[in-house]
């Protein structure tokens, strides 16, 4: 009904909103702008090889590993909670996975679901304690950070007979039909074909310099798409925003806030388990320092991606770009003449700018006056 639409839209006191103003209200804006800025920065300062296909794969791989954690952390933050135990969870899940494959010799089809199950249970326990005690998740998961890190150390010593590194994962999973899903490069045949027709750089032997897309990048994209779909297009996504925005209002309106929050904790733990499985198979061993400091990096990723620390606002796509910024800066500095140790300064600066920016955006969105 065009007349109805016209009626709806006609109001002399409403100015048509300029495109830029509309764009300003997207939570992803900061992260997308950041990617553009960082790209320009490295275009000027870095060696050209950074933006070749192999260079791009080079910085997308760490971005992907962090991004999977960051997207989960972003969803949890939108739901109004924190998880500081996510980095230790990578070590813990890696230890479980290593023990299941090496010590028990289970095939991946069993060990992977079991790893997710263990991680999920720990995540659920975290969530349950936060919900039941009403304590801030910050402090509960800070305890989790130490408990899981310590448990991984003790566990690794137990399973290896005294070492803090568990080797032999690669041998144990070799030939398993699930191995290619979690490690190595995908779409190798496409790259071989591209090389044969001369579209990508090749070694002298005629093999492509980039043998395929590292699977973690595919997982990263998959997780980002799934998270975005859930957040923006499902009822559950609406519940996540509501639970983080105002838990009383949400539960008064019939949103099962506690269930939502606990499942978000489970998701974060499972994201950590996924990263653990990918990296452990990739390196062939697991150790107690795996995932060290990743909790902070994941939270930084989420914040750069536009999440508010107070919850109820943010986006998974933002965290996706946040992770790419992270990867570009970590790896990119090696392509420049700068001292690599500028990395942390850069990171802190990004975080500060992101928080200030997000705060301004929030005021715009809520129309705070």
């Amino acid at each position, binding site marked *: 009904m065009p007349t*109805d639409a016209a*009626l*709806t*839209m*006609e*109001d002399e006191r*409403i100015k048509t*909103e300029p495109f830029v103003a509309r764009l300003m*209200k997207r939570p992803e804006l900061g992260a997308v702008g950041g990617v553009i800025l960082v790209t320009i920065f490295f275009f000027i300062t870095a060696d050209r090889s950074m933006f070749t296909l192999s260079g791009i794969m080079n910085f997308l791989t760490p971005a992907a590993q962090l991004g999977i954690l960051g997207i989960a952390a972003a969803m949890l933050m939108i739901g109004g909670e924190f998880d500081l135990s996510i980095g230790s969870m990578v070590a813990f899940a890696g230890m479980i996975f290593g023990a299941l494959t090496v010590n028990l010799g289970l095939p991946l089809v069993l060990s992977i679901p079991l790893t997710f199950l263990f991680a999920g249970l720990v995540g659920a326990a975290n969530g349950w304690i936060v919900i039941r005690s009403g304590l801030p998740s910050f402090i509960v998961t800070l305890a989790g950070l130490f408990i899981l890190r310590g448990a991984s150390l003790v566990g690794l010593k137990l399973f290896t007979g005294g070492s803090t590194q568990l080797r032999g994962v690669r041998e144990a999973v070799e030939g398993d039909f699930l191995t290619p899903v979690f490690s190595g490069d995908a779409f190798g045949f496409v790259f071989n074909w591209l090389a044969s027709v001369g579209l990508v750089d090749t070694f002298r032997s005629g093999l492509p310099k980039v043998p395929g897309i590292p699977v973690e990048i595919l997982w990263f994209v998959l997780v980002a798409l799934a998270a975005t*779909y859930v957040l923006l*297009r*499902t*009822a559950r*996504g*609406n*519940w996540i*925003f*509501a639970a983080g*925005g*105002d838990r*009383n*209002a*949400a539960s*008064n*309106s*019939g*949103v099962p806030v506690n269930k939502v929050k606990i499942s978000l904790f489970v998701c974060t733990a499972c994201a950590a388990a996924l990263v653990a499985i990918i990296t452990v198979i990739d390196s062939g061993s697991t150790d107690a320092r795996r995932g060290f400091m990743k909790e902070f990096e994941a939270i930084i990723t989420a914040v750069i991606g536009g999440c*508010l620390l107070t919850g*109820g*606002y943010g986006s998974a796509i933002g965290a996706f770009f946040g992770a790419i910024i992270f990867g570009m800066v970590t790896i990119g500095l090696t392509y420049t003449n700068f001292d690599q140790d500028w990395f942390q300064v850069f990171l802190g600066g990004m975080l500060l700018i992101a928080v200030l920016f997000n705060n301004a955006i*929030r005021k715009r*969105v*809520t*129309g*705070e006056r």
Partner: protein
Amino acid sequence: MTIDTKFHHGDPVTHAPIVEMKGIEKHFGNVIALAGVSFDIRPGECHCLLGDNGAGKSTFIKTMSGVHKPTKGEILFEGKPMSFSSPRDAMEAGIATVFQDLAMIPLMSVTRNFFMGREPKKGKGLFERMDMDAANDICVEEMRKMGINLRGPDQAVGTLSGGERQTVAIARAVYFGAKVLILDEPTSALGVRQTSNVLATIDRVRKQGVGVVFISHNVRHALAVGDRFTVLNRGKTSAPPPAATSRPRSCRT
């Protein structure tokens, strides 16, 4: 005691009451919060509940909306005795309460707030998703019926004025099938213009056949839309306010 001022609004309402509460008493330990209050609400009327702080208004509406169980007394819902064990029960029966905090989330869009907890769905199984197009259309349409032209369904609730938020909450309750709408001090924090918007909204809702229970401190606001008035004083219904013969009608639309 209630005073009937139907003459002012044209035809008297002849429907049977939706909710009838007889001799409600509520004791909290040795405190008698309500000492025999009788109240009823009919479709299409606005019944105002007035009273000072501590008169028992809040206890009374909480009894009506299923938060408290009365110590004594009878609640009839559409003629049948009823006891609600939770606010959810009352909501499902069609008694919706708009509390002062409105249950709105400022950072979320109007549509997302409107359907919070009751999202329209489409698709099956893994592909079950929120029907955003339908939700947006319904939301804009319902708000238009209430006289609010949204900038867009994705406008954040935080950018709405207090009166508009109140209207969103009322529109939401009505859309989800409220037969009785309890408004707890809807105009207490609003300016003159916003108040008149909310009062106009109450009038619209009443015309759709919903029974409105309007709780207020402000006699002028109550007089502007009320069909009947009940005054609570120290847990009892007391004498009615002065007859509303020169009630301002400027707020009626």
